[in-house]
């Protein structure tokens, strides 16, 4: 089968805003969501920089039984998903009668795990963890909770693929629908934002230490970048088979036309041009389009010296002749890790829907590799018919998604 796969709903909760409207405004104005968490400094972090994400207030929205199982990232995912389901016109009574699945990216639940172990050590009694701890602690915390809350009856599992988790969730959802195995899938990515989650990453000296100027710290592709800024939240992208979406009267927002993936077969943390180029070419080949057809690339670029250089080289190798506009929205959000691949589809969709390319803020001076790219340094009014979004993760996992406007 070769079904068309469309996006019918979007939702987001993150450091640029708590809904699509707020996030669109932040993207358009180039507003940074980065600040300082002094608790991390007290914990011995090298960098206290982080995306600042508000905690949702769920009392009144969900009953106690549903709330106690939600980890921090699952709370974000719930908020993003109710927004996406609302604008996809997916009512609960319809969902209960149809086979709706969930494939969500998540690769840790460090806070829930750490707090549980602390309680066991202090109390010497596992019962005192309470009933919610297990459902908060597992990597599949988002999918197990949301599938229960929304009474989902389709495919149901979590994708753990480091910083490409969210992107692969959409890619796998795309394939499941394209091949006729599912008709409606809630995809997305979630990332916890707390001191438990990022200590080991901080320990690699991967984070920016430009603490005296937080909004300038994340500067992908800029010559003077000194590391990434960890961030998070959740983003939901609802995918549906085109015919089914039309039949139920869903809004058709765009079409997913390509998914490329690859593994570097190389270093555990260093990126690799060949692996990324294979992912990019696979996405283009699958979509049946040429490099010249891409109007905008939402880069993975996280603001690390090595990673950005590799991606700039890979993009130049594939798009060197056509030089589409490129920006890394991580310049505003920081690195949303497990969430990033999904949130960056949401950001790019907002740009496509509103005819602009969000700026790669803090890009002041190129280095040798980024000088070859056409980087959007300021908000650019532009019609986007087709965009590509890159996501790359530790272990050398690569994912590239291509989305096309519905005309």
């Amino acid at each position: 089968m070769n079904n068309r796969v469309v996006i019918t709903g979007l939702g987001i909760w993150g450091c640029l805003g708590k809904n699509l409207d707020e996030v669109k405004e932040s993207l358009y104005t180039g507003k940074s969501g980065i600040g300082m968490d002094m608790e991390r400094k007290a914990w011995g972090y090298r960098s206290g920089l982080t995306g600042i994400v508000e905690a949702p207030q769920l009392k009144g929205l969900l009953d106690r039984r549903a709330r106690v199982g939600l980890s921090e990232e699952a709370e974000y995912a719930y908020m993003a998903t109710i927004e996406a389901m609302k604008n996809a016109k997916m009512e609960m009574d319809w969902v209960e009668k149809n086979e709706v699945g969930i494939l969500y990216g998540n690769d840790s639940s460090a806070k829930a795990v750490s707090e549980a172990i602390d309680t066991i050590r202090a109390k010497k009694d596992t019962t005192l963890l309470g009933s919610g701890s297990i459902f908060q602690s597992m990597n599949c915390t988002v999918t197990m909770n949301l599938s229960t809350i929304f009474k989902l009856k389709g495919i149901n599992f979590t994708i753990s693929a480091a910083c490409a988790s969210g992107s692969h969730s959409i890619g796998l959802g795309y394939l499941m629908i394209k091949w006729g195995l599912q008709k409606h899938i809630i995809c997305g990515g979630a990332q916890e934002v707390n001191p438990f989650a990022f200590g080991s990453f901080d320990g690699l000296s991967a984070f920016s230490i430009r603490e005296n100027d937080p909004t300038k710290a994340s500067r992908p592709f800029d010559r003077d970048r000194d590391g990434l800024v960890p961030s998070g939240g959740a983003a939901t992208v609802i995918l549906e088979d085109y015919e089914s979406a039309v039949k139920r009267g869903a809004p058709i927002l765009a079409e997913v036309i390509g998914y490329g993936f690859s593994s570097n077969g190389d270093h555990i943390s260093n990126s690799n041009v060949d692996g990324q180029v294979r992912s990019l070419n696979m996405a283009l080949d699958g979509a049946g389009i040429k490099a010249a057809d891409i109007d905008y690339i939402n880069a993975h670029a996280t603001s690390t010296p090595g990673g950005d250089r590799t991606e700039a080289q890979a993009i130049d190798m594939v798009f060197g002749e056509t030089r589409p506009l490129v920006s890394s929205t991580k310049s505003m959000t920081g690195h949303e890790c497990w969430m990033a691949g999904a949130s960056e589809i949401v950001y790019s969709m907002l740009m496509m829907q509103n005819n602009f390319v969000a700026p790669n803020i803090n890009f002041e001076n190129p280095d040798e590799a980024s000088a070859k790219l056409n980087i959007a340094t300021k908000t650019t009014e532009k019609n986007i018919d087709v965009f590509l979004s890159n996501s790359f993760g530790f272990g050398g996992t690569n994912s590239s998604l291509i989305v096309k406007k519905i005309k």
Partner: protein
Amino acid sequence: MTQEEIISKINEFLVEEFEVDAEKIIPTSNLRETLDLDSLDYVDLVVIIESNFGFKVVAEDFINIHTFQDFYDYVNRKVAEKATA
């Protein structure tokens, strides 16, 4: 802690944590049915009792607790035992 204080504290956390309407808490009413407790909720009840009264409930103790009054009496007895221990 007096018996009245214990009852007041129990009712307070049942309203706060289990989100039951205060007017539905009647001593002769069935605890499980009123609070709509499932097996997972009993685990949370153990945690709440421990944090409020400092003793650990064993699962078997719940077998003989049917009404809110049974629950008050049980907690009252355990608190008294703890005080004299």
